């Protein structure tokens, strides 16, 4: 059976990983290449590289870093941030990305998903949605969660999947950073609306939160987190062992 995936997300600005602490055996925690390699060896099933660079110089640096990582790390790599055109897809795919996640770019240009899926296949296109409750309704936010688009989130995600997105990353703004667990209610709504894999993001604070996620919502395919991994609060190795102990199917390396 297919395993549940554990995915660390690396925020990269000007060629460096934005946050992190020192791990044993890893000197430069802000080197995306070293950190990616480290996570890969710890059993991460996939890595997300998120480009939070604003400048074109930074973007070039990001692409170079991605290439360097892909030369050393042989697990699936997903790239997000600053993806607005099919040229952006091309730029990162040529550097070893396997999947490309779109967020604001798809909101600005709804045909982007369709065009990219035709060129690179559905499996390559990930819709990443930042969602927040506004007066009891799930709304899609743009620009890193700063701008309410007014769009109803479930309909938006369904539309993106209909246009060819092969996977959904659901970031709950409501639970993000709170560290009290994933947004199970929001995730359940998305899982029931689409038949493609759903990746939970936002809210993980400890190992138990992942256990609860996969036990409560068996339809969720993966859990994504950033700071709890980077700050060493949760080790991927311990997390996967615990999931295995709870009879959740995960990939444990020999």
């Amino acid at each position, binding site marked *: *059976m*297919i*395993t549940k*995936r554990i995915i660390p997300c690396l925020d990269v600005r000007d060629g460096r990983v934005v946050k992190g602490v020192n791990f044993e055996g890893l000197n430069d925690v802000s080197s995306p290449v070293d950190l990616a390699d480290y996570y*890969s060896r710890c059993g991460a*099933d996939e890595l997300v590289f998120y480009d939070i660079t604003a400048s074109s110089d930074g973007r070039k640096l990001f692409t170079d870093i991605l*290439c360097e990582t*892909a*030369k*050393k790390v*042989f*697990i*699936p790599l997903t790239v997000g941030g600053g993806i607005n055109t099919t040229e952006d897809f091309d730029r990162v*795919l*040529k*550097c*070893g990305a*396997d999947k490309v996640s779109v967020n604001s770019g798809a909101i600005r240009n709804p045909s982007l998903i369709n065009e990219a899926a035709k060129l690179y*296949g*559905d*499996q390559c296109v990930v819709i990443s949605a930042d969602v927040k409750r506004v007066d009891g309704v799930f709304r899609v936010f743009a620009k890193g969660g700063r701008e309410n688009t007014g769009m109803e989130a479930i309909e938006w995600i369904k539309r993106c999947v209909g246009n060819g997105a*092969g*996977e959904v990353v659901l970031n709950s703004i409501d639970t993000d950073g709170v560290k009290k667990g994933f947004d199970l209610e929001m995730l359940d709504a998305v899982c029931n609306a689409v*038949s*493609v*894999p759903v990746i939970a993001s936002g809210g993980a604070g400890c190992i138990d939160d992942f256990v609860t996620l996969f036990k409560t919502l068996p339809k969720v*395919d*993966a859990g994504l987190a950033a700071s709890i991994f980077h700050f060493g609060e949760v080790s991927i190795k311990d997390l996967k062992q615990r999931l295995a102990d709870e009879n959740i199917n995960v*990939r444990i*390396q*020999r």
Partner: protein
Amino acid sequence: MTAIIDYGVGNLFSLTCSFDAIGEKAVVTSDPAVIKQADRIILPGVGAFGDAALKLMSSGLDKVLKEEVKAGKPLLGICLGMQLLFEKSFEYGEYEGLGLIEGEIRPIAEVIPADYKIPHIGWNALIFRNDDGGLFKYIKEGDFVYFVHSFYAAKCEKNTAAVAEYGAPLTAAVVKGNIYGTQFHPEKSGDVGMAILRAFCERKCEAC
């Protein structure tokens, strides 16, 4: 030297890098002369079968591959490259493949339960079946590899070296003499994938 066939289908960056990582020389090429010089051949591929088969045949590379395989040169098809080894595919129509291995490519939707997601994407365990031709000499049954596919190889039981369980046993690897195929991506399957590529690189053409 390993020739990685470039016929305009898919991204060869990671595959090329994985050969660097295991210390094996690999050349991305569409040149028949280079393919003929190679010790072994990789046929990669991502995308739709029909389009890929057309590209392979219109470039004449299908004939080169068939000649080299007939001479005994090891060939490894990866993902769509594995599917192209078969006789035909029913992916959005009906298309002819290279016909090097008996069997056909069919939608996984035909065999898996309705509540299973398509594509079959993620890490799944290998269940060994028939002779692996040495491909799995450095790995163990139950090791995980990375899959992304919506179609699978059917009617090929006797050449099936491994399957993956996804509501139904899906063909994960095939071996027929010097012809090898993996539905999964060894170049994205971490250490296990590297070990499979390393084993393939030990295959040599006896008669070449």
